[in-house]
């Protein structure tokens, strides 16, 4: 090979290109390579030092959930033909992947009640931020109003992105766990380009999405809304702010589709749909919007068409919106979708099926209701928000004890009772808070065990405090 190239060694090629001062000139300071079996043992040893949902009873949620992933998803994702291809830039040999995207887009459109879905984006919080950017490009306005019910990671990511493209983010507080609609209307005005809320919200409560959407549009147009004290609406004929909702997709079998609640753009974390926890990623974000946003959508989109012989086929379309053609005017810089994770999503949704998806939602609702009642009945445990506010798969408690210490006691019993709320949000009203998530893998027996363990842990901590031990 070297003869064909016309050099004596590979080193010659490097030396001809790389100037001497930037040649490394030494070996990388990394361990030597290992045979496959040693690498396997090492990775297994690392795995053993993680306490996963396999090892303990996991009630952690807050954005990612321990749902059951059917075996056929694992099998399909390991197939060479789905795992190893590149992005489908040559559609003639990528019909499998392109059709999967089309099916996925159809499923997301159907779930959200919105006409346009892309083929997926990275994950939830960055999808929220991307939606904000799209809104800004759409209406040119740089003021965002966001409910404190958004996932804290979504709020943080939105702020990071907004600082870059020049938008202000105003946070609206909750009242008793739901977005305070008076504060919401009061914060929104004619300069507001986009508004954001979550459904269910971060605390697991179901928001009145139609009311929030309507109030946002009214306030943005300067129409009288109860208690609105904003600076008034925009110029006549100006479009209202874009209503963006971050939605938990597993609840869409039960709750009304965002598109029927006045929402313009629905985004969210797709991990619940057939994807593993994987310590936080990779997963996928979904991104759906009204028809008018079709040509501004970020990310990849697959479209149906015909070939020269009239065969039905699929291609990437509207690629001009993407980075590699529009360059500086692109609606986003997103180069990939999360094709493999979205495949898991559409397979999972097809596996659940029309009835199964609704049944799953009702099962989660029933178990959540049971768990919430069981836990608030414990001494030293109360609901953080009024029980009259419905929760469908997750809810918040307040413990009359140090949350970290209680969680440690539970961990020693093989139970992870949920997330430390204050550690996640930093809000004073969340002190003592515990966020408990329910999936179909958490049976009644598991919930009963949680009640026992949590009850005992709280009692032990309270006793310790009463006695005054350090």
């Amino acid at each position: 090979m070297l003869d064909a190239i016309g050099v004596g060694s590979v080193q010659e090629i490097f030396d001809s290109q790389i100037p001497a001062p930037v040649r490394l000139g030494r070996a990388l300071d990394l361990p030597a390579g290992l045979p496959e079996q040693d690498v396997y043992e090492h990775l297994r040893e690392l795995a053993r030092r993680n306490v996963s949902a396999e090892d303990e009873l996991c009630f952690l949620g807050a954005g990612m959930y321990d749902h059951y992933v059917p075996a056929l998803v694992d099998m399909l994702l390991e197939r060479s033909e789905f795992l190893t291809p590149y992005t489908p830039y040559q559609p003639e040999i990528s019909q499998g992947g392109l059709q999967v995207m089309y099916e996925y887009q159809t499923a997301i459109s159907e779930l959200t009640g919105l006409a346009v879905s892309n083929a997926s984006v990275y994950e939830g919080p960055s999808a929220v931020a991307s939606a904000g950017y799209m809104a800004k490009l759409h209406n040119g306005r740089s003021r965002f109003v966001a409910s404190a019910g958004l996932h804290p990671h979504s709020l943080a990511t939105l702020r990071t992105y907004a600082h870059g493209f020049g938008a202000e983010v105003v946070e609206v507080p909750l009242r008793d766990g739901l977005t305070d609609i008076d504060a919401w209307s009061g914060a929104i005005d004619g300069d507001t380009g986009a508004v954001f809320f979550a459904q269910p919200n971060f605390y697991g409560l179901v928001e009145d999405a139609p009311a929030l959407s309507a109030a946002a549009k009214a306030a943005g147009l300067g129409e009288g809304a109860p208690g609105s004290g904003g600076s008034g609406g925009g110029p006549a004929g100006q479009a209202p702010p874009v209503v963006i909702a971050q939605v938990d997709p597993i609840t869409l079998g039960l709750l009304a589709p965002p598109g029927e609640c006045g929402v313009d753009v629905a985004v969210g974390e797709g991990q619940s749909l057939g994807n593993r926890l994987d310590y936080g990623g990779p997963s996928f974000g979904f991104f759906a919007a009204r028809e008018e946003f079709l040509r501004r959508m970020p990310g990849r989109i697959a479209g149906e068409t015909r070939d020269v012989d009239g065969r039905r086929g699929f291609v990437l379309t509207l690629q001009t919106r993407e980075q590699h053609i529009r360059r500086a005017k692109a609606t986003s810089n997103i180069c990939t979708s999360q094709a493999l994770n979205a495949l898991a999503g559409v397979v999972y949704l097809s596996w659940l099926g029309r009835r199964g998806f609704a049944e799953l939602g009702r099962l989660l609702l029933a178990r959540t209701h049971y768990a919430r009642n069981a836990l608030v009945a414990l001494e030293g445990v109360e609901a953080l928000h009024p029980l009259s506010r419905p929760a469908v798969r997750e809810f918040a408690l307040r413990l009359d004890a140090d949350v970290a210490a209680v969680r440690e006691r539970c961990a020693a019993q093989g139970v992870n009772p949920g997330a430390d709320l204050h550690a996640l949000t930093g809000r004073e009203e969340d002190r003592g808070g515990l966020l408990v998530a329910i999936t179909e893998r958490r049976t009644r027996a598991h919930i009963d065990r949680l009640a026992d363990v949590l009850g005992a842990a709280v009692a032990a901590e309270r006793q310790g405090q009463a006695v005054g031990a350090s």
Partner: protein
Amino acid sequence: MQREAAVTIFERGAPGRRAFQCPALDVPEVDPGELLPAHLLRAAPPRLPEVSEPELVRHYVRLSKRNFDLDSGFYPLGSCTMKHNPRLHERVAALPGHARLHPLQDPPRAQGALELMYNLQQALAEISGLPHVSLQPSAGSHGELAGVLLTRAYHEDRGETRHRILTPDTAHGTNPATVTMAGFEVLALATNAEGGIDMDDLRAKADEDIACLMLTNPNTLGLFDPNIAEIAEIVHGVGATLYYDGANLNAVMGLSRPGDMGFDIVHFNLHKSFTQPHGGGGPGSGPIAVSERIAPYLPMPIVVRREAEGAQSNGKASAGAAAPIFDLDHGRGLMEARVGSRSIGRLRGFQGNYGCFVRAYAYICSLGAEGLKDASETAVLNANYLLARLRNETHPPLAEYLPLAYGKLCLHEFVLSGGPMKRELGLKTLDLAKRLLDHGFHPPTVYFPLLVDEALMVEPTETETRETLDAFAEAIAAILREAAEDPEIARGAPYTTPVRRLDEVAAAKNPVIRQAL
């Protein structure tokens, strides 16, 4: 099977069929209508498919067979680094200790994951020559966004407002889009006759309104810019940052490091050099490494390592040397002095694409220092060999029809121009690409970089054999010989694929992006 008419999952099944069996209701049933008002409840179940498991499996397995993939064939896509994805990685990523770990698990009970991430950070720091790493960004373009936002934070912290970012006109399209998204303007830099940065243009444009120069080295032409030291000096001289797009890292691992070249910020594509499978278009992962002066702005959280103290917090003495403790720093505590609240914040939820970290880490463990260097050397050898094979081919004289756009040798990839082929044989690069499909190869990257007429960007990677490279060169030669006789054949290609050329115009004019249900 490949040629059968496309049927979507929504067109299969029948009412009442199901794959999922819902677990039994072991708690009192709750009527949603009693808990929630009607206007918040879904009126009718979503129109998802109703299929049995066998139908579901058959549908997707058959669909998979309409895909070309890397396990099946050669993908010489320039700038994509389509190297073999070792299957060990799937096995280790699937271990429940990794796969079923919740991202909010307390750090003391996620030491395996945190140690893995820390070790990966250290390895990437060593490979790049920049000490501080964040694994958070989700893809290359996300890492780029991070780099530009870091640059913004750096300048703002010094009380400066800069508006423009320089990118070479050969840059990947992501760069300009990222720049705009982060609130800057793009200013293009010219390329010189050798394919490197036009130094006069750089000197003319580098001023104190420039926030950053974004570069990849070697560049998209596969050429290492010999002026890199001077480029760094000029950029730093006006107080701007120098950003490295790691798309072409496969050429220089263990041989040259962006940190030593003078870069401040580097992003890696774990789905390129580090074998994260492409998955048909994602997931990926785009960690970044930065210099000391940029470290304060890194996104949070990052993984840190502490030596365990001799005395534990409850006052008891420890029983001998304790293992280091790995933790997630959210901007408080250990690294406060350096990091604190100057971080740009979050770019996404949780810690990043851990599943990709597991695979990349397994790869680095498998190859080790020598193996990584060997990978780059072999990648460069393979690219130059393929280039030589194509140029030495006389039947037809490929060097005339598909000349190398710049230079004589290349690093890990090279760019040919299909201009002469178009003029003399009436064959466009697009037609060559489509005809290659009939030969069982994925074509190279086409029409990029924009700088080269009818561009063809070829990157074989180190995991291809000589036989494959020879076969590919032979296929190109055969296509051009055929075109010399009758160019219509290639213009009508492909013929043997599941579908033939598709009407992309119709798809864009009247987009149909979901099934009517």
